[in-house]
């Protein structure tokens, strides 16, 4: 009986550990967070997305923005946590994909009521890259030919006006 109870207790602990670790690893999307602000307020969340925009250094902390494909959320993190981040997404670059673990604030008391996440851990999942955009020859041809057309048309207009 004692062995059975002990076995049951061990199994229960294992189930709890596995389920809680799954729960911790569950990624919340920006939609989840923005539609459930009160539910998530003050809770530890995991949020994944691309680092975009600018990294704004404020003392020993930084503001960075992580966009999960829908909208960006501001992340407040110690400067030391972002050392691995090399690519910040914009037109020229695809930013690093990171997973942020931290405390979600519906209205952060430290930052004037901003909705933000205070990061306790930032993991780089995928490295970003420079986006190579070759000059479109089609656009060059259309641009140059249409410019010539406009100039010829303007010259004709002037010519007939002067006559």
């Amino acid at each position, binding site marked *: 009986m004692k062995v059975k109870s002990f076995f049951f207790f061990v199994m229960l602990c294992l189930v709890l550990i596995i389920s809680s670790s799954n729960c911790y690893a569950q990624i919340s999307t920006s939609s989840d967070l*923005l*539609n459930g*602000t*009160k539910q998530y307020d003050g809770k530890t969340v995991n949020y994944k997305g691309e680092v*975009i*925009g*600018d*990294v*704004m*250094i*404020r003392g020993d902390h*930084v*503001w960075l*923005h992580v*966009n999960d494909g829908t*909208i*960006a*959320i*501001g992340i407040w993190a110690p400067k030391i946590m972002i050392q691995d981040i090399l690519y910040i*997404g*914009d*037109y020229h670059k695809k930013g690093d994909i990171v997973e942020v673990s931290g405390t979600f604030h*519906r*209205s952060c*008391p430290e*930052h*004037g*009521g*901003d*909705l*933000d996440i205070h990061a306790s851990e930032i993991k780089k999942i995928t490295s970003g890259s420079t986006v190579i*955009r070759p*000059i*479109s020859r089609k*656009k*060059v041809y*259309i*641009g140059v030919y*249409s*410019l010539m*057309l*406009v100039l010829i*048309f*303007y010259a004709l*207009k002037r010519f007939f006006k002067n006559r």
Partner: protein
Amino acid sequence: MILKPQANDIKNIGYYLGRIIIGIGLTMFLPFIAGLVLFSEPNPALDFLISANIAIFIGLALSWLCKTDKELHTGPAMVVIALSWLAAMALSAIPLFLSGHYKSFLDACFETMSGFTTTGLTLVQDLDHLARTHNLWRHLGPFIGGQGIAIIAISFLVGGTNGSLNLYLGEGRDEKLVPNVIHTARFIWAISIAYLILGTIVLGLVGMSIGLKPHSAFFHAVCIFMAGFDTAGFAPQSINILYYHSLMFEIVTIFFMVIGSFNFNLHYQIWTGNFKEIWKNIEMRTLLFITMIVTLITMAGLRQWGVYSDGMILFRKGFFQIISGQTTTGYMTIYAQQFLKEWGDLALTGIIIAMVLGGCACSTAGGIKMLRVGIIYKAFRQDIKKMMLSPSAVIVQRFHHIRTMFIDDKQVRAVLIVTLGYFFLYGLGTLVGVGLGYPFLNALFESTSAAGNVGLSCGITDASMPAILKMTYIIEMWAGRLELMSVFALIGFFVAFVKGR
């Protein structure tokens, strides 16, 4: 009997429309040069070269085919204005559509109409990866449209006086700063460019102080200034002003939103040293009073719902959104979802009242306008006095706007017609929104935001919303910016064309 427009009227409209379209095309060379020289973005720059050429070609063709020396009269001038805003929307949408960041050409048209009318509702996809060249154009739109598309034409492309005056009046402006309309137009540009330089420097320095790199800080500064002073509410990043996480940035933005909502005539008085006008002007007094009332309502709503636990946070978040709504800018320091889910009905009602009433006349702001609200209030006061005093008593009601004037019935009638028109617009969008299944308060909020050229959103405006609602909002933004009269003139012109003899 309705008279059919004559061939000369149509030629006249075509000629002036052509000149304005040339002006729109020429402005596209700004992002073209910036894209090549400043941002190293050749493909986006080419989008602007192509679009500029299309616009200039159409403009040249129209002004050549419709060449006329006739002066432009009031009716055709209003038709020119109404059509030129539609042409500006369609032609300016070409480079945005070519960017690949819009799901359809209609979405790009929505964006440009929203920009030109200084509304600020947006349908852009993945804004955070949009090329700076395209982003600059999004923000240049409000700067051009805020001052007025016709103002460009009057300043640089259209000669004559009567035609220019009629174009100026057709764009929802009925006040001249100086007797000559061309000088008025140039003064409006001078004020705007002076503020642009000042605003870019101040916001750029604040941007650098909060951690933005210099080139980024000044790019953000020029964009935020153009969309803030011109009360449009566009921002270079997807989370609007929340992106900066800075009280100082918010304070400077509030300052530029507020002065952007002032009457250009008031700016002229201040620039010429008449500071007393600020305190005496009916618009300023009405603006101050309405802002106080709206602040009380919104703050009470926020407190009632316990949205913010801290008083300072409540004031910071509440006041920014109030000023943004009142000046019809549409900048946000909260997410659209928070408006809906957290703010509660009373606070939302406060913001709706602010958006409905709007900023000052002859400014870049939208809404009914403070001058009209002030005149309606004075007219009511006059009528109540008439009821209370002896029937033989003669009651006059004065108000001060640049000079002291007496209220007359003709003026009140004109004010009430436009006010009624705005309420019709607000109602139209609400009706369409509710008909498509959106809750009443949300539909009212978004419709008021579109027709009042505000740009605050409670989440309805999205690329996935029905095309019919997009078109309704486009019409609302267009009619709201032109204060309806030019739109009525265009409708009247088409009716006369079809039914006239």
